[in-house]
């Protein structure tokens, strides 16, 4: 039934009019369907993936995404390595980290990068994915068009683990005892 309606809608000679047998609802349905199809087709032609894609998906299907604009999200880790007017930022989504090549000016929003003492900013990147980037010696990377901070990072101050401290003291006592006993017996 739906198929026949689509066929009717696609035929220019049968554009619905008030006199035709098709109801107003059918006409609206057709319009929405055409819009939906157009949206999907447009989406594919623009090679854009609106939802963030995981690093595992990108690495395992690198050929599929090669040269396409993708959205990737991850925690900024390590150093922001400035190279002239550009910079490298590595984003880890929890499974793998991927290098992002972006304009130096875009990095100003990144305040924290992940390390032992800090949780890095979570950054969403829209950019072109390269399976083997010719510009960067064949690296699998992402050239950012825009970035957006989705979650701010923070310092993670260290708290003394009392259990570990106590264990150190107990073991120190045992070590001293063993050492003294060893020295006594040696004499």
């Amino acid at each position, binding site marked *: 039934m739906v198929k026949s309606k689509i066929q009717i809608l696609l035929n220019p000679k049968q554009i619905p009019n008030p006199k035709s047998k098709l109801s107003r609802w059918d006409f609206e349905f057709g319009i929405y369907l055409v819009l939906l199809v157009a949206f999907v087709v447009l989406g594919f032609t623009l090679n854009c993936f609106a939802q963030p894609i995981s690093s595992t998906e990108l*690495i395992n299907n690198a*050929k599929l995404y090669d040269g396409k604009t993708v959205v990737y999200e991850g925690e900024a880790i390590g150093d922001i390595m400035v*190279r002239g007017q550009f910079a*490298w930022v590595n984003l880890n989504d929890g499974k793998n980290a991927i290098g992002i*090549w972006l304009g130096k000016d875009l990095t100003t929003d990144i305040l924290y990068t992940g390390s032992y003492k800090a949780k890095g900013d979570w950054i969403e990147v829209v950019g072109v994915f390269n399976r083997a980037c010719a510009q960067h010696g064949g690296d699998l990377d992402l050239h950012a068009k825009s970035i957006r901070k989705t979650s701010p990072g923070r310092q993670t101050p260290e708290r003394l683990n009392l259990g570990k401290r106590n264990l*150190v003291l107990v073991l120190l006592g045992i070590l001293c005892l063993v050492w003294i006993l060893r020295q006594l017996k040696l004499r």
Partner: protein
Amino acid sequence: MILKPNLEDIKNIGYYLGKIIIGLGLTMFVPIVIGIAFGEINPTLDFLISIEITLIFGLILTKLCFTEKDLNWMQGMIVVSLAWLVAMVLGAIPLYLSGHYKSFLDTCFETMSGFATTGLTLVQDLDHLSYTHNFWRHLIMFIGGQGIVVVALSFFVKGFSGAFKMYVGEARDERVLPNVVHTARFIWLVSMVYLVLGTLALGLVGILNGMRTINAFFHGACVFMAAFDTGGFTPQSQNILYYHSLPFEVVTIAIMILGAVNFKLHYHIWTGNFKEIFKNIETRTLFITVMLTFFIMAIGLSKLGTYPQAIVLFRKGFYQLISGHTGTGYMTIYARQFINEWGNLALVAITCAMALGGGTCSTTGAIKMLRIGIIYKTLKEDIKRIILPERALVVEKFHHIKDIFLEDKQARSAMLITLAYLSLYGLGAIVGMLFGYPFLDSLFESTSAAANVGLSCGITQTSMPAVLKITYILQMWAGRLEFMSVFTLIGFLVAVVRGK
């Protein structure tokens, strides 16, 4: 009739094992210095706990087994093989306390991989690991690369004939200098000089790459230790890809090659005998096998069109190949790219490179160049014997520091060790296949573990079966010690059970 080991055997083994354990405990002071310098409290406590446990264990063992007798060959071999297992367990304690490992088995896998200079890793969330723990991961590669026993020989032994037995047990059958303790100290001298130079070079490249100064030199030291000792750990989860830098790759290639060179050759280079580089059978064989495997790999990659330009193919292909051939395991691609993009031919080429290894008496694992060279010379000699008249005297010689006439004894030894390695690669591959992994993947990962390389095609994960983890641990251990001391330990255990 098998003789049951007596109490004296066990006391001798226990005493020298205890000494090595104390030595290992003292090396844990180095990460404590790092922990204090970076103000990391809990990681410092982890190492204090580990030092105390290690020293208590070592002191009790040396006390209970106190002896003034020297080691015999069997005891020396067993001390070495046990020392590596005990070091694995004790070295795992601080890493396990970090909370970055899912089980103690995973941590043992990591430490065996470190000590054996393999580089396969099961660490979780490496990018948030403390400087202290990270430094330890790389330091154990440095210690393992020189040889755990060599460390003990250098600093804790004043000279006894049993030293040589342990030295040989650790797969170092060549003495650079007449005295084995002096040889051990020379190995340390070479390593320390290169450590300073390598750290400076990598640190400066890091700064130029835009890294913070402190990070640049920390990474420089860690990457040097792992590259020179052909290990393969890195401070970040992306391995060398983290740096996105050609100069960094070039410097690490140079360090990896230095690490794959025989320490005896280093000695000759240091004393100005540069001609030895071009004459030595090991360097010649290394050059030929690198060229051959690279050629095969390049055909494989270009047929698939994996890389868009020849220069890119060279950069990616040559790096992974040198990394595999020298037994380092540094990667500038992701593990799954080997399987998804490299294709079978390139994968076979890199597996062959891993299986061959670097120089004897170096920090690499695998079959090694001297043995490959000897096998080639033996084959050449046999072919000559067939072709030439029966009365012709066929003599083959090779140059390794000096001219040496090829003897059947050398050929047999080279063949036996090669056969043992090939069996070890095959056994690991069979275990991998038993768990459902494809043949080539299993062979790649098994060869990487047994040859102490560290390249991974993605099998090594925390989710892999525990039996496979244990298989790889045993492969790394046996591969690093080159079998003899492992076989001696097995014989010893059989004698304990069945001896009279």
